[in-house]
């Protein structure tokens, strides 16, 4: 079987931790690297969390440290994920895991990703569940490698419900210019907006079933997701915890789980209330050529089943 070469760009993060689990447990995936980014929390925290999760999975996937700040100095640096992810980014449960003994790769993320792309067959998928700073820098510094990327799959933007401002979602908000660079790059994109992620929720029963996978990964992820679930059940006023960052990975593993539609998208770089909003022209009112596939609905049960099956393969 030819495996799909994959790079993750994450700001781990509770749902990012599930993404790592799905990627490392999937037999169809060759996980080339995990690049860390600031985002939900600081780069230091997200890097430590990433290392701990990889170690928990018993893997030695290369973890590469990315940028700690947005591309441009005029973008405020804020880590606004503590409400959803806890102060430590892992539901205030990171302490349940030992400190990482695994060491990050000592090469810059841009160079490391460039090398992976250069050495690849040319069908690398990048899954991005963080601000797009690292990916934008890669595309700016190595335009010659763009055609080695099959798709960039992004958790970001919002159709209706933003989580920073009414229409603004955190990953695009954190570095709107980087997002624009990626969107205008011409590389094939699949974008999974926040409110589509809202539909990919796990009920209490789903989460109990995850724990029944009965291994330390399942126990740990079952423990940390409670923080995320509490936050979102309170915010959205309904039962069920969305796992936003899982949607891109679910699409990579089984495209049938996520319904997408081609759209023209553009990042708002100038608004007072809307800077960092991802404008998604679902109705083609601008009559512009589409530049992204945008996820509009998900197979909720299918995604929960995928998580369960992956957890059963974990240790």
């Amino acid at each position, binding site marked *: 079987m030819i495996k799909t070469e994959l790079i993750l760009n994450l700001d781990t993060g509770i749902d990012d931790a599930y993404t790592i689990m799905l990627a490392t447990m999937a037999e169809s995936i060759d996980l080339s690297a995990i690049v860390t980014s600031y985002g939900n929390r600081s780069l230091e925290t997200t890097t430590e969390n990433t290392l701990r999760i990889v170690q928990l999975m018993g893997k030695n996937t290369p973890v590469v440290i990315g940028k700690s700040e947005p591309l441009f100095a005029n973008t405020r640096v804020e880590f606004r994920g503590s409400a959803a992810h806890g102060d430590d980014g892992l539901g205030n449960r990171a302490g349940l895991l030992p400190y990482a003994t695994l060491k990050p790769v000592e090469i810059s993320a841009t160079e490391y990703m460039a090398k992976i792309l250069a050495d690849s067959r040319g069908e690398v998928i990048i899954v991005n569940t963080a601000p797009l700073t690292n990916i934008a820098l890669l595309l700016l510094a190595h335009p010659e490698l763009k055609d080695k990327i099959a798709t960039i799959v992004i958790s970001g933007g919002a*159709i*209706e*419900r933003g*989580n920073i401002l009414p*229409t603004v979602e955190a990953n695009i908000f954190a570095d709107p210019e980087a997002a624009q660079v990626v969107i205008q790059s011409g590389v094939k994109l699949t974008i999974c907006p926040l409110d589509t992620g809202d539909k990919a929720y796990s009920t209490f029963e789903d989460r109990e079933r995850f724990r029944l996978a009965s291994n330390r990964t399942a126990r740990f992820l079952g423990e940390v997701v409670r923080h995320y679930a509490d936050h979102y059940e309170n915010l959205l006023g309904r039962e069920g915890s969305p796992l936003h960052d899982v949607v891109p990975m679910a699409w990579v593993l089984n495209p049938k789980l996520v319904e997408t539609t081609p759209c023209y998208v553009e990042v708002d770089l100038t608004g*007072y*209330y*809307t800077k960092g909003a991802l404008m998604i022209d679902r109705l083609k009112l601008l009559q512009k050529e589409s530049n992204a596939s945008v996820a509009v609905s998900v197979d909720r049960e299918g995604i929960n089943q995928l998580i369960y099956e992956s957890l059963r393969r974990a240790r």
Partner: protein
Amino acid sequence: MKQRNLIIDTDPGIDDALAIMLVQASGVFDIRAITSVYGNSSLNNTSRNALFLADLYDIDCKVAVGAQGPIIRSIPVDVARNGKNGLADIRYPQPKQNLHDRWAWELIYNTAIECEGELELLTLGPLTNIAIALLKYPSLKDMIKKIVVMGGTVSSGKTTISAMNNIRQDPHAASVVFSAGFPNLVLVDLECCMGGYLTDSECDRMLILKSKLGPVYEELRKYQRKYQREEIETNPALEPILKDKNIYCDLIAAAVAINSDITDYKQYYVTCETQSEVNYGQTIVDWYGRLNQVSNVFLARNIDRNLLSDMFFGSFDFYSEQNRNTDEGVK
């Protein structure tokens, strides 16, 4: 029953024409004035159309002229939607009365004083006139019992990109109105209106009624059908939301003003984007309290479209009744 006092601020406009008909036929309002604003067409056209509609519907009120453009920046308008004269290019007789000799905002303010807290507003166009009134007379906000605003679209994905003409044409005016502090501001947005559609057969059954509105309605309807067909041909993505659905936004706002029970309401803080190049004029609804503001708007949700259809049909009845009465009078 005592009639409620109303001023209609409007840019007629095919669906403005239907909205004004509905208001007059309902009988619940004493229409104190119609104020015109640019929008669907130039101020000249909309003002003239307003005078014609007052004649057509036998509304005895002042018609005052308002702003001829937005406060800051003009944006292109799709003239084809309402025709070159703003009213499906129909030809109509010289209006009986002249335009009032004071500006729209002066008439609104003076009428508000006369009505002693009992004046309501229905706005069917860009909010420039109301904004100027508020900027000049800030106390106006406490003198208006209720203002029903047709404008905006609260979801950035489902309806238009992010903006809808009445707000997009003058977002600065809209933000003045939203932030003024009206105690009872009802917003009827495009997404809400999508649920208040009338089917083709619901629109066409009026065509057989014998009413003095008949010939005018037939021309408006014919024009609007043709436009809608072309709109779908140009952009097939619109077909699922427009096929067999006639969405007369202003008519829906009028129905909400007439009978508040026709919809549900949710309270939100609403503002609008005035700086963005991409989302200029976007209506911002703070669904989850990200902006930490007190709610300022009752957002209409879930229109009872059967009731709307009945009201619409009934307004034709009203004018055929009136026709009969007039005929008898002549005998």
